[in-house]
């Protein structure tokens, strides 16, 4: 799942799909944390998962706001249009 997320971020060119791939990475981590927490009978891992979920939600909110801002200026969410800064 983590690898799918990484590959998605590197390959896809649609802003919304990029956000989804980042979420995929975070969810893979969540799964790993819960698995370890169950294995160790330790609640700290599960508590961390809640923190990750909260932060991920905040992050996606900001990310979508940035995408909306870009859509207003370019009428597209295709990030390959964004090459105005010199490389």
């Amino acid at each position, binding site marked *: 799942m983590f690898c799918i997320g990484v590959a998605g*971020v590197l390959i896809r060119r649609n802003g919304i799909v990029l956000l989804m791939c980042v979420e995929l990475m975070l969810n893979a*981590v969540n799964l790993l944390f819960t698995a370890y927490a169950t294995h160790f009978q330790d609640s700290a891992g599960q508590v*961390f998962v809640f923190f990750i979920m909260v932060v991920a939600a905040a*992050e996606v909110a900001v990310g979508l706001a940035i995408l909306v801002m870009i859509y207003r*200026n370019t009428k597209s969410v295709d990030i390959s249009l964004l090459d105005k*800064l010199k490389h």
Partner: protein
Amino acid sequence: MKTLILLFISGIFSLFGGIFGLKKILPFFASIALATAFGYLAYDSYYGIENLQNMLIFDNYSTLFIGITIVSTLLIVLMSARGYSYNSNSIGDLIGLMFFVLCGVVCMVSFNNMVMLFLGIEILSIPLYVMVGSHRNNLKSNEAALKYFIMGAFATGFLLFGMALIYGATQSFNLDVIRSFSATALQSSPALVNIGLLLITIAFAFKIAAVPFHYWSPDVYQGSPTLVTAFMATVVKTAALGAFLKFVIYLSPMLGSQWYIVLGLMSGATMIFANVVAIKQNDFKRMMAYSSISHVGYILMAFLTVNKDTQSVVGFYLIVYSLATIGVFACLLLLNPDHNKSSGFEIFNGLGKRSPFIAIILTVCLLSLAGIPPLPGFFAKFSIFKQAISEYLGLVIVAIASSAISIYYYFRAITAMYFTKYDETETSCLKEKNYAGYFVITVSLVGLLVLMIFPGLLGL
């Protein structure tokens, strides 16, 4: 702790102040709040170490880094008094977000638990994405915000995955427990620990913009408003390096020799690549981005030989670097307050005649960044080289060669100031007086000169 609470309340107050039309006094309010926070920080550290449930520990180390970031923010807020008029409706939001970033910094550099490290990095990053995109109608700013966001979120994924693997090996998030567990964990599951450490290192490399994870940084520095660029180049860089150094100091028993090889290669590549590429840049802000990447390379060299002096060496370097960088960006903001010109080198043409005062300060700051001997930038570099030279002679030679290269591109701006004629037809924005801006550049000049004469003044 009091510092953290004060910063948080000031942040909320600034946000509401921006809504209720207190924009005129906000920079002054923010300056007073930051000065008070700094006072509390000094007061608390005087009364010893404060430990919050083993989650956050406020000791000398965190006081040093929080102090550097608070003073840098204070200078940047003073710059904003006039400098952000381009979009002055959002000055309240901008200052509020700066306070929230500082809250993140406090968590990041005083963490004793992986959870606080993660939360600190996120509290720092999320307001920054918004700040970078704060010129809403400027497509460059939008692009910078999206790039920074994607890279930041990507790095967060790596950081969390690394933490998950280390949790799997050691069953704890607490750094003390992880450290005491490290020998057993390394024996029972070396792959988990090593891959986890590597992933966390990659995430930090993204945050501090070390080669090969630096490619977002020039775009973001160029695209964001100058004030935000200054903030990122100083406060954010200091915080990320502080957190990384704390991580390395705590977990040094877990780090194998291959980890040091990776870090050494990263440091060498960062210095060479950044300095060589910076020569070709025609945009001043992009050049400053590469310059700050190269400084990260020098600082990473100190991470290789961690001992009891590392903290003060890195702290001194970051103080000198932050002062000089703030001076440079404050001068840039004085010359181009409304972001209506390009930020190429031609902006400095004939500055030596137009405004000798700004020209001298800019020259001193750039020379200090380049590490020319009498200035404190030289002493800072020298103390890092001195530490590393016994074990990593090759790396020190690379560092000296690349800092010789860096003198060339710093001198491009200086020659433009003194030896290029100014086009008289352009309107000058230097006519109107911006006292806060002049105050900031004077402070950075005085700070650099004081550190030049008394390098031991700060007791580092």
